């Protein structure tokens, strides 16, 4: 009877594995049901450590369950088994206390060695500050003057089932972290609001990003490619929607990318030097709103009260007296909420256009315009 059930379970699992081709290919180097070996020396070491412990556990189960099922089978009362009287045996008890200890030591030795390696962040060539926000990541290349947000790029319609889901559903971003091949990259982690965790399985890096504190980890990739991960610490509503993408490219490509990021930042900043029209601001603002604001304040500005206030038809975004407060809110954020200080992180053009958008979309129609130059002057950038 028990055997039958176990066979049944095995069969179902097997069926599941065979059906594994229903959906897109794996998002990492995993076979789909095991830990990904990954693309770094450390990740491969972790993988082999995992497999070693796994097989030890399998061996233990075979022995333990073997002894158990054999006893159950051999000493059935229905077959007339008579019970023995022994109830202790010091020798045996000492042996089965000692053997697990030895096995554990065998496991602990390689684990300790690997862990020491993972903790050695010395001699890194690139430092990237990773900041977790509700619900996006920000990457700041220290000393390179390059920083940007990385947002999930999966369209909302795919999540709601209105559109077919793409291969990289939920694990794709608008701006990946780009790193050069063969260079030791040290990441420093912190958070803006709550605790997040930065996890890329193929790099075997998972570390918490804690507000007010800084953590570090490192990786060195030798194989070009895109490595995907997700936030691994419950961080609120859209915890499931803040993926990570690390793109490993040759050094020249990395340098070119850095240069292009700097050029783009200069061009973006130059946007504050000219006068924008209402249409330009609204168009740009809609894009910024959907990327940075819609997750909380909702696409139609209705919000999710009481935590995320509505913007459509109520509050400072429709009050002509509160234009300055509205600007301050977007630029400086609000303490103790998911509202970050966008003045620090977005360009004056982005901040100005999104405020203009919020004051005029969804029937708010205040007619107020905020020029990028006004934001630039306010922030003294």
């Amino acid at each position, binding site marked *: 009877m028990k055997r039958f059930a176990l066979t049944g379970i095995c069969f179902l699992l097997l069926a599941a594995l065979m059906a594994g081709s229903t959906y897109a290919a794996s998002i990492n180097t995993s076979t789909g049901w095991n830990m990904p070996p990954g693309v770094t020396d450390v990740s491969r070491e972790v993988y082999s450590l995992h497999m070693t412990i796994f097989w030890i556990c399998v061996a233990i189960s075979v022995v333990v369950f073997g002894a158990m099922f054999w006893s159950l089978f051999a000493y059935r009362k229905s077959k007339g088994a008579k019970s023995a009287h022994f109830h202790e045996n010091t020798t045996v008890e000492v042996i089965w206390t000692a053997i697990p200890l030895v096995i554990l030591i065998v496991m602990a030795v390689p684990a300790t060695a690997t862990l020491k390696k993972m*903790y050695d962040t010395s001699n890194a060539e690139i430092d990237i500050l990773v900041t977790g926000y509700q619900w996006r990541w920000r990457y700041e290349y220290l000393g390179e003057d390059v920083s940007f947000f990385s947002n999930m790029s999966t369209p909302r319609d795919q999540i709601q089932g209105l559109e077919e889901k793409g291969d990289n559903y939920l694990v794709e971003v608008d701006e990946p972290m780009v790193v050069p091949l063969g260079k030791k990259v040290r990441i*420093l982690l*912190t958070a803006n609001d709550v605790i997040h965790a930065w996890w890329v399985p193929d790099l075997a890096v998972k570390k918490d990003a804690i507000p007010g504190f800084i953590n570090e980890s490192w990786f060195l990739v030798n194989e070009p490619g895109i490595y995907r991960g997700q936030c691994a610490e419950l961080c609120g509503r859209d915890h499931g929607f803040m993926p990570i993408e690390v793109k490993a490219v040759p050094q020249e490509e990395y340098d070119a990318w850095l240069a292009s990021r700097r050029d783009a930042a200069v061009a973006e900043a130059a946007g504050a030097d000219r006068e924008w029209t209402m249409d330009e601001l609204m168009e740009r603002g809609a894009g910024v709103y959907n990327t940075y604001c819609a997750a909380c304040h909702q696409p139609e500005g209705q919000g999710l009260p009481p935590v995320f206030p509505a913007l459509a038809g109520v509050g400072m975004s429709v009050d002509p007296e509160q234009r300055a*407060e509205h600007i*301050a*809110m977007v630029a400086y954020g*609000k*303490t103790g909420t998911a509202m970050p*200080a966008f003045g620090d992180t977005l360009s004056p053009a982005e901040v100005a256009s999104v405020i203009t958008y919020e004051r005029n979309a969804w029937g708010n129609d205040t007619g107020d315009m905020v020029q990028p130059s006004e934001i630039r002057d306010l922030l003294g950038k």
Partner: protein
Amino acid sequence: MTVHQSTDNSSGVKRTVRNTLFALVAMVGFTIALVPLYDVFCEITGLNGKTADSAQVISATGVDTSRTVRVQLVTRSAPGLPWRLEAINQVVTVHPGEVAQARFRFTNTSDQRLSGRAVPSVSPSQGARHFRKMQCFCFQEQWLAGGESLELPLVFQVDPALPDDVATLTLAYTLYPMGEEIALGGLHD
């Protein structure tokens, strides 16, 4: 016999209850004590990148010129304070034991007088307790008038006892408003 036994029980029960209640009170006390104990523990071990929260004296153990340590200074602003905090020196290279200085600029971009505090954190954590601050703005709150800008120094020393495998120390300051009601008082409703 029943009565006799019950009396025994009742005094035993009373004793047990008294003892367990005592243990309970002790555990409550222990829990409360854990908060300061944790801070002390963090400071001693550098757990969680915490550094001492008061100025330390220069330790005269001599300068180890055979080693250089890169001290990286990172600044961040938490939401809610219309200030900007910049590290003027983003990287300072020092020999262990040497007293060095890094400068930071605080700018209040609003027109109100406001206060804030920069909270430090050092990584890697095994380096935190070897990062000694002689003079630091992180120990107290700062007040800035509207539009005011202020440069403040951080005087520090890297202890020669810093583990050999630590070649880079990162000191991150996160700037927090002191009391949100002051910072953006009228703006939230």
